[in-house]
């Protein structure tokens, strides 16, 4: 059976970084003036070379790509012949619009996977069109790479691709993160969650016979986690629960029939939604009425942040009121494989110190099942 891989390069990705810009979106001319060199194509070629060297020839592998610097040139350069060009950029320089236009066409080609080369900005552009319809894998080449779809290096990305083609890896939720532009314009460098896509993950296995294991889907693991959270809600009936953002918690909320805001924080009391998409101020107000509260959160993005990325509403004031001991961290085992260290960056030295002193967190990874995970507080 043929495997169809979409391949898209954002040729200008990463150019801003070397010259001290926070991205290349909308500032390409400035970047070029400052002497920025294209790096995305080099990174894409590195990945392709590595992939060719580690993988046997797959006659059934078809590359669906864009013309010129958006993919075809690099595939040519490494001698990949089995390809089909589905989009040609119009102008001399490409932009976010080209990424989006190509993504729209990719949707019609029944792809098994879409590989893109870029950073968080590129990932976001693709996400706005593709959503969860095609699994994504990013070759890291951008200025910012907080999203959970990137391989750690170009080599690692090639390895993931090979393992995916050999059906050793599976598909699960991954977050699209990027700089919060509104805050950035106010001079603050904060990253937020923009959406959930399908990424490539390590499957979780359960022992079913003495010598063989069965791979369980990510959703089955989340099902167990939902059971766990349901028990907690029943056990702590007079407590308020703050459900944070992310794919895992969204799944749990749906299972519990709670209408949840995917990207925000919702307050739940006795299994009922009492406030939606709350900000810091609203949480503090709620805590006056419901002083006993627990926070349910899961690590998001590529770096395993549990606080300080994507959930800025959980300010130091909120966490101090609720208490560190009332934070329930929940994660699928497949997620922990990629983020074996959890990170905290609350912006409050004293609070960060409290986490640092603890050094470790118990993370719930299954029904009534938890394990110790290392915690780091230095920010990136």
């Amino acid at each position, binding site marked *: 059976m043929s495997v169809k891989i979409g391949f898209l390069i954002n040729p200008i990705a990463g150019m801003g970084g070397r010259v001290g810009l926070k991205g290349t979106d909308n500032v390409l001319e400035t970047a070029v003036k400052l002497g920025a060199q294209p790096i995305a194509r080099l990174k894409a070629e590195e990945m392709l070379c590595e992939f060719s060297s580690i993988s046997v020839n797959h006659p059934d592998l078809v590359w669906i790509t864009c013309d010129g610097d958006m993919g075809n040139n690099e595939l040519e350069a490494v001698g990949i012949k089995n390809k089909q060009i589905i989009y040609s950029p119009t102008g001399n320089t490409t932009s976010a619009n080209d990424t989006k236009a190509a993504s729209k066409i990719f949707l019609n080609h029944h792809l098994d996977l879409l590989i893109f080369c870029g950073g968080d900005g590129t990932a976001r552009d693709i996400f706005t069109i593709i959503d969860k319809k095609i699994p994504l894998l990013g070759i890291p080449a951008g200025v910012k790479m907080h999203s959970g779809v990137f391989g750690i290096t170009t080599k690692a990305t090639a390895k993931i691709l090979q393992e995916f083609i050999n059906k050793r890896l599976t598909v699960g939720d991954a977050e699209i993160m990027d700089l919060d532009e509104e805050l950035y314009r106010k001079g603050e460098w904060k990253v937020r969650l923009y959406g959930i896509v399908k990424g490539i993950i390590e499957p979780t296995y359960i022992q079913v016979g003495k*010598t063989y*294991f069965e791979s369980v889907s990510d959703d089955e693991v989340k099902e167990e986690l939902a059971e766990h959270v349901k028990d907690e809600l029943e056990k702590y009936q007079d407590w308020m629960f703050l459900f944070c953002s992310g794919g895992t918690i969204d799944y749990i909320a749906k299972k519990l029939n709670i209408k949840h805001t995917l990207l925000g924080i919702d307050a739940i009391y006795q299994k009922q939604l009492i406030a939606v998409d709350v900000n810091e101020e609203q949480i503090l107000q709620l805590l006056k009425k419901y002083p006993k509260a627990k926070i349910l959160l899961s690590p998001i993005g590529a770096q395993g942040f549990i606080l300080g990325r994507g959930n800025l509403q959980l300010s130091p004031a909120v966490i101090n009121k609720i208490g560190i001991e009332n934070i329930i961290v929940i994660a699928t085992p497949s997620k922990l494989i990629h983020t074996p260290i959890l990170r905290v960056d609350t912006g409050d030295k004293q609070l960060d110190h409290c986490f640092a002193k603890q050094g*470790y967190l118990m993370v719930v990874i299954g029904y*009534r*099942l*938890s*394990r*110790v995970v290392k915690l780091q507080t230095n920010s990136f």
Partner: protein
Amino acid sequence: MTQITKRNANKFLKDEYDELVKNHIEWNICVLESGSKPHSIVNGKEVIMMCSNNYLNLSNHPRLIKGAIEAAKKYGAGSGSVRAIAGTLKIHTEVEKRLAKFKRTESALIYQTGFAANSGLIPQLVGEGDIVISDELNHGSIIDGVRLTKADRAIFKHRDMSDLERVLKDADKKYRRILIITDGVFSMDGDIAPMDKIVKLANEFGAMTYVDDAHGEGVIGEDGRGIGAHFHIEGKIDVEMGTFSKAFGVVGGLIAGSQDLVNFAYNKSRTWLLSGSHPPAVSGAQLAAIDVLETEPEHVRRLWDNTKYFKKELNSLGFNTGGSETPITPVIVGDSGKAKELSNKLFDEGIFALPIVFPMVARDKARIRTMINAGLTKKDLDFALDKFGKLGKQLSII
């Protein structure tokens, strides 16, 4: 009138089996025509047995066979009932007394199988508001036992005492009872749990300790007395669980510990209370096995001589045998396909050893797991080493 079938109630049986076959993960049962012996006839072919748990070759020992026959003659073929009602024969209680003496514990209790011991006892030791802390590589029967409880569960990194301590510290504040549970000898890698350190940590936090010593019983410790004897902490592990089906060469689960533990266990374990007791022949053989271990130390000695020789020679051939400290000797091959190929070729050459592949072990750590036996001669081992060497080179493993 035609009968309308609502649904095909049995269709899934074939469907699910076919799926296993399609993925090559169904069990192809090998049939032994000879009894489990160092040289066995498997599927019609004579092979050197390197994958049985019959470490001391006691399953063929004349005293065990005699013990079984005599017990059957005296007590009959079956026991007639569950232990609790009318199925406790004098010979059952004799085995328990002798076992406690052998294990140097206050008391002991026999279960139908090791699985029955784990799945029957663990759910009684902890309940709601308690926590079970478990090594991440524990055997499936422990995991099943733990799943039957309402207790929370936490995992610590394999044999990592600082990880265990972190979990204990966290659990100390939140739970009523804490149970630490671990394999004694880990069945995939053949390494040993640091039981002395686990007991020390457990005492610090007031936690209970439970060790599944299935692969250590009859193998490690003075005269094969198990993990308690291995670390010289007999009687200090709260629950020493084991089995008669491996080195002892018979069948049956066991626990050894205090009289309080035994009284509690047989009154509460549903597996013990609700399945029939061992046939007398089983108990007769169990008694004889303890006799043999107490009076014929050469079996354990030979097992270790064989183990040391085989490991040393494998290593000098260039094979990686991992971190094994016991007769479980993994021959690490790397790739899963290669491990399967090596196992098949070994069988063709007359050696029966099973491959262990991903996801039971890491992707690049697929292996042949050889189980050394006291009944193997030097000639047998040299024969096996010669084949390992030849095929290892052929498959570019060494």
